[in-house]
C-alpha cells in the first residue's frame, strides 16, 4: 500500500483507539508509527504487537527507575515523559545523565518510535539511547535512527528486538549528534496485510449503521434535488 504520512497517521490513530488505547495516547502512538515507517521500519506491526495495560504501572527501585513488564503502548509516552522531566531537573542541578531500566517490553520497536517523536519535539532537542549495554542498541537522535551492537544491524528491521525486549536501558541527553537531515519521504510503503489489519482495528471505533442513525444522525435528508 502506497500512502501519505497524514493518511497513515489517521489510520494508526484509529487503530490504536480500536485496540483500546485512550485518546491522547493513541495520537502519540500514531506519530510513533509514522516516525518508524518513514525510516522503513514496521511501525504498524510495532503498534499491533503492543497490548494496552489494564493495571496501573508500578515503577520501583532507587536511583535509576526500573519497570518490569512494560506495556509500551500504554506506558511508553509516560516513561519518556518521566525521563525527560528527570533529565531536565538533573541538568539544571548539574547532575549526570538519567536513565530508565525496563524489563519485559511487549514492543521495543514501538518504544524506539516514541523516542523518535520525543526527540523531534524536545525543547531543547534530545537524543535517546535505547538498549545501551544490552548487546543491541539504538541511538534515536532528532532526525536519525542508528542501530548498533547486533550483527549486521544496519537496518532496524534486523534489530534484535527479542533480546532487547527482555531488558533495556533508555537514557536521554541534550543536543547529541543530529544525524543529519530527517528523512521526509512523500510516499510511504506499508504492507497490505498490515494495512488491512489496521483497518480492521479502526473499524472497531465506528458505530454500527442503523436506519435511525442514517436519518437523524447527520441533520440532513437523503436527497438534494432542489
Amino acid at each position, binding site marked *: 500500500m502506497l500512502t*501519505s504520512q*497524514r493518511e497513515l497517521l489517521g489510520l494508526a490513530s484509529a487503530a490504536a483507539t480500536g485496540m483500546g488505547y485512550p*485518546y*491522547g495516547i493513541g495520537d502519540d502512538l500514531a506519530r510513533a508509527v509514522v516516525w518508524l515507517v518513514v525510516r522503513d521500519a514496521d511501525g504498524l506491526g510495532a503498534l499491533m504487537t503492543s497490548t494496552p495495560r489494564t493495571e496501573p504501572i508500578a515503577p520501583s527501585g532507587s536511583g535509576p527507575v526500573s519497570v518490569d513488564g512494560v506495556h509500551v503502548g500504554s506506558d511508553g509516552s509516560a516513561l519518556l515523559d518521566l525521563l525527560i522531566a*528527570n533529565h531536565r531537573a538533573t541538568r539544571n542541578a548539574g547532575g549526570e545523565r538519567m536513565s530508565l531500566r525496563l524489563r519485559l517490553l511487549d514492543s521495543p520497536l514501538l518504544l524506539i518510535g516514541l523516542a523518535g517523536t520525543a526527540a523531534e519535539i524536545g525543547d531543547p532537542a534530545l537524543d535517546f539511547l535505547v538498549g545501551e549495554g544490552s548487546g543491541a542498541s539504538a541511538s534515536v537522535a532528532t532526525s536519525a535512527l542508528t542501530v548498533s551492537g547486533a550483527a549486521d544491524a544496519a537496518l532496524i528491521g534486523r534489530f534484535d528486538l527479542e533480546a532487547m525486549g527482555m531488558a533495556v536501558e533508555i537514557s536521554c541527553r541534550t543536543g547529541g549528534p543530529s544525524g543529519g537531515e530527517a528523512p521526509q519521504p512523500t510516499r510511504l510503503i506499508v504492507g497490505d496485510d498490515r494495512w488491512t489489519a489496521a483497518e480492521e482495528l479502526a473499524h472497531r471505533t*465506528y458505530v454500527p449503521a442503523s436506519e435511525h442513525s442514517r436519518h437523524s444522525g447527520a441533520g440532513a435528508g437523503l436527497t438534494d434535488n432542489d
Partner: protein
Amino acid sequence: MIEPTDFVEDTLRAPEVVMTLERLGSGFPTRLSFMRSLMRALAAEGAEVTRPVWDIGHDGFGRAVYTVRFGGHDYSLVAFSTELADEERTDRVIATAWDSSYVLFDGQPTVADLDRLEAAAPRQEAARFEEADLILSRANKSVRLFDHVVDRLAAGDQPDEELVRSVGYLMRTTAVYGNGKFGIADRAGYRDRTAMDHPFRAEMLTVWLIRGFTIDLVEHIAAQRSPGTAAVLDPRFKRFLGIGNATGLGMAPFLISHPILINNWLMVRETALARVRAVEHASPEERARFLALGERAAVHLAQWSVEDAIQMDRIVSLRRDWAELRQMIDDGWLSEPWPWHRLLDGSDRWGLECQELIVAAVLEPHGELIDGLTGCMSSSAEPRIDPSATIADLRVAIERDWSWALGVDFEDPHESAQFWYVSEDNLEPRIGRRHEEPGADLERPLDVARRVAALNAELAAEGGSPDETVAAFLLRRPEHRYAIKRVQTLAGHPFSEIRANLIGDDCRPIDLLRAKLAFFGASKFDPKSDMWTRVTLYQGAPVPEDIADGGDADDWWLPILEVPC
C-alpha cells in the same frame, strides 16, 4: 489620555468573550478570510487561468483542465462532469456518485494522468490517489438554477434575476479533501511554497477554479443546444454567482483537533481588531469606505433569507440592529477621535450577530494595517505534554482557564445528552442522543470540557503532592493524557479552546460549522438543521478574467447583486 499602543497590546478581546460557541457561531467573513487573501495573492501576480483541455460533450459530460501559474508553480484543476440520477443526488458523505468531481493536480497533467484521474476522481473516497494529486473534491448541481440558466441561455435570454439572487450558485461542493486523504499529497509537501503558505490555500484555489468551471459548463451546454443563438452569461451574473457548499458534522472535529491552528486564526483576527481600535483618527477615505460598506451590508442582509426559523429570526434582528447602527453613525461621528474603538466598545447594545458584523466591517478599510497578519495564520505545531510541570502548575492552569468547564454538572443528563461518533455507514460523522441511542461507548473526544472536569476531580480526589510532576502522574493515570494536553495547550494559546460543552443538549453544532466557514470567507449561511448548513463561497469574487486584467480583486465583502445601470 489614551495611547494607541494600549489598544494593540492590552485590548485584545478576552478569550472568554471571543471563544464562546454562540459568538463563534455568529461570525462573518473578513478581509483576513482565506478566500479574500487568495484573491489578493492571485491578483498581485496577475495570475492567468488557461483551459488547455475542454473535452465536454453536447450534453455537458466529459472532462476539462484549467491551469493557473501561481507562486512559480503550475496548478491544474482536472474536472469531470458525469451523469447522475436524481435519486443518487445527495450532498451527504453517504453519497457514492456526484454530478462532478475534481482533482487539483500539481503541475500540468498528461493524457495518462487524465485517464488515471478519470477512473478515480468520480469514485472519490472509494479510489486511491497519488502524490501529484493535491486536493480531491466533488460538487452537485443546484438543479433548479443550473437547468434554469441553461434553458434561458439556450433561448438567448438571461436567467431570472431573483432566482440567481436567491440561490446564488450553480453547483454545491459537498467535500473538499486535502492533506493526504486517500493517498493524495501531504500538505507538508507543499506548504512551504510561497503561494501555499496560508491555511487551506490549495483547497480555496480548487474551489475558485470549480466555480469557473460551473459557469463555463452552463454556457457550453446552452451553446451546444442552440448553436449561434445562445446567450452568454451577463458579467454581472458571472461575478455574483459563487459556488455553493453543503457542510455537515465532518467539519466540526477539525476545530477541536487543531487547537494551535485555531488559536492562530483567532489571534490574528483579534490582533487586527486591536490595531484598528488603535487608530485615533480615521482618514476621509476610511470613513467613506466604512459608510459605503455599511450601505452594502444592509442590502446584503436584505438579500439574505433562509428557511430555518432560528437563523431567520437572527437575520431579522440583525437587519434591525444594523439599521440602528447606520442611523447613529455618519461621517461626523467617525471624524471624532477613536472612532473604531468607540464603535466596538458600544456594540454590546446590539445582538451577537451585529457585534461580529461590526468586527468584520471595521477591518475592511484597513488593509494596509492588517493584511500582512494573514501570513501568521498557519501552524503545523501539535499539542505537546510538558512533563516537567507539576501538579500544582496543572491545577492553577485549570482553575484559571477552565472555570467554564468546571461549572458544568456532567451528572445531569441534559449536560451530556449528545455524543459525537463516526458511523460505519461510509464513515459519516454523526451525533447521537446518549441516553436514547447505542454507540456512546465509541464517542469521539469532543467532550473536552467533561474530560478536563474529570481530570480536575481526579487531582482533587488523589490529594497527592503538588510537587509531583505531570510525568509521574501520567505514569499512573495515562487516560488523562488527552485532557492534560488540552490544559497545557490552552495555557500557552489563549484562543485555542472553544469554551463550550459540546455534548450538552444546548450545543448547536452548526455554530462550529459557521465559525470555520466564516474564516474560509463563506457567506449566506443557510442552516438546514442545527447540524447541517449550506453556504456560498466566492459570491461576488473576481472571475479569472478579472484577476488577469489586474482589476480590483478585493472589493467583494458581503456581495450583493447589483442592479444594472
